[in-house]
């Protein structure tokens, strides 16, 4: 009994996105809800049938056939009243071509392409930014509404509203690949959203299992771009970056869910295989067509350099400093400048970095991450042995920190440094 539920919940995660995508292709985005209903009915049918006669040898193929048959029933029932996907509706209208047309869409290559179309549609400019993650989690990752609400720290009713609005918007969109001209900006948005999804998982402390799922889903969506042949240098950079981060997934928090700095992580917990996989992705950045952003490849190279160091003290700060200055050139981001200062602080010593960070703190007093600038400054003062200045700035940083985790990490690091100034325990960028 339990194993039936396990199988079904596993299938929900792996098959929902595939099925909703192919059915949206067939029915058209304006019938997106019909697609969701058919998937739901296929799952109900599986539950009833498998309860009676056991789980079949290939449950995902069984489910695919159930969805295909259900889709055919729905088309026969609705075709006089509804129009389906623009280019397919006439073929679905005729008994001569209907089943063949449905079967052709249900082939593996087309299902993969349909998932790609779905990714691009969920990231279309017409879909509001804050609505993109919920619809992706629902349609492509097969998460339940309670699970989405929990992971995004929003009320279920809010998620429902967001999904409702998004579906209304989707009704007017086309379920097509962006053409050559629109592909680069569309791909840039997709990369951004995938990274957002990954970070939700990586930095969330709500539920370890959900966190890991989010990271895996982000990797899977990135893989889809590669398999679908639309990957550019940013895609490979992002894929590599997420792999290097994900390799450190288990060492990044302690038993209580508190984050552990890079300097204190147990490097034996790092997933070597995934790091190697990340290197393969990173290797493709230089040969792929250039991306619109350029930042992911550089960030991946930085993360890869960290992963290559046997210990924190053996980190190649010279390379990391250079990479950060390239990142500053590409993004102009104050956060990149801050991280560059951190790297300089390790490469040439805290005194070399302090003036630049002081300037950054002055320039970005109202920045959303202003407390991070102060935290870095406090840390540099502490390493330079300027105890009272370190604590004074640290207090200001603590006041702005958003979570107890951030506060405890900063407190511990400053205490470690100032409590015994000769030790070499240090903070990570």
């Amino acid at each position: 009994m339990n194993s039936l539920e396990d199988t079904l919940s596993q299938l929900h995660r792996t098959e929902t996105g595939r099925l909703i995508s192919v059915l949206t292709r067939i029915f058209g985005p304006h019938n997106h809800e019909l697609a969701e209903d058919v998937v739901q009915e296929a799952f109900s049918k599986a539950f009833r049938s498998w309860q009676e006669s056991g789980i079949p040898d290939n449950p995902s193929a069984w489910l695919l056939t159930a969805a295909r048959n259900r889709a055919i029933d729905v088309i026969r029932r609705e075709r006089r009243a509804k129009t389906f996907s623009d280019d397919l509706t006439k073929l679905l209208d005729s008994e001569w071509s209907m089943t063949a047309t449905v079967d052709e869409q249900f082939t593996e290559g087309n299902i993969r392409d349909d998932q790609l179309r779905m990714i691009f549609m969920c990231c279309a400019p017409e879909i509001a930014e804050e609505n993109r993650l919920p619809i992706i989690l629902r349609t492509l990752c097969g998460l339940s509404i309670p699970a989405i609400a929990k992971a995004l720290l929003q009320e279920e009713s809010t998620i429902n509203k967001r999904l409702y609005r998004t579906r209304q918007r989707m009704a007017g969109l086309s379920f097509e690949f962006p053409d050559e001209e629109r592909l680069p900006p569309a791909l840039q948005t997709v990369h951004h959203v995938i990274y957002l999804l990954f970070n939700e998982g990586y930095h969330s402390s709500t539920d370890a299992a959900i966190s890991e799922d989010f990271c895996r889903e982000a990797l899977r969506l990135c893989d889809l771009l590669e398999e679908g042949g639309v990957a550019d240098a940013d895609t490979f950079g992002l894929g590599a970056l997420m792999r290097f981060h994900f390799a450190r997934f288990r060492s990044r928090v302690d038993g209580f869910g508190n984050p552990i700095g890079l300097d204190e992580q147990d490097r034996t917990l790092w997933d070597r295989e995934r790091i190697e996989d990340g290197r393969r992705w990173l290797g493709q950045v230089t040969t792929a067509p250039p991306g619109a952003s350029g930042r992911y490849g550089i960030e991946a190279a930085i993360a890869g350099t960290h992963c290559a160091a046997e210990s924190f003290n053996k980190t190649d700060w010279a390379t990391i400093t250079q990479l950060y200055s390239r990142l500053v050139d590409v993004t102009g981001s104050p956060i990149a400048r801050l991280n560059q200062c951190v790297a300089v602080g390790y490469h040439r010593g805290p005194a070399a970095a302090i003036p630049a960070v002081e300037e950054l703190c002055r320039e970005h007093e109202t920045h959303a991450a202003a407390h991070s600038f102060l935290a870095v400054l406090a840390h540099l003062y502490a390493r330079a042995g300027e105890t009272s200045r370190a604590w004074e700035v640290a207090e200001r940083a603590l006041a702005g920190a958003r979570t107890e985790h951030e506060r405890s990490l900063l407190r511990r690091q400053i205490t470690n440094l100032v409590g015994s100034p000769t030790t070499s325990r240090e903070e990570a960028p």
Partner: protein
Amino acid sequence: MREFLFLYKGGDPDWAKNRTPEEIQVEMAKWGEWLGKLQANGNLGTGGDPLEYTGKTVASGGVVTDFSLAEVKELVGGYSIIKAETIEQAAEFAKGCPALHDESTVEIRPIMKM
């Protein structure tokens, strides 16, 4: 562009019974491909449907008769509406029709605009 009624005539009345589901799937895939190509080029009016090989004839005066077995080979097995510039072009399209095998024929009739 004009519209033409394609009437698929003849064929085996029991074709569905005489084939395995796999054979039917292969057959229908050909139909999907043929109509799909016409659709992609803007030549598909209405795909239409296959027809069963049974039925009745109603004559003036209200006389209703069943089809006789002798007529079956002459019966229309299905129809589509295809768009073409000329009837010659329509005939070219018909040459690719999966209905054409054995003694089956495709009858092409321009649809008259009154």
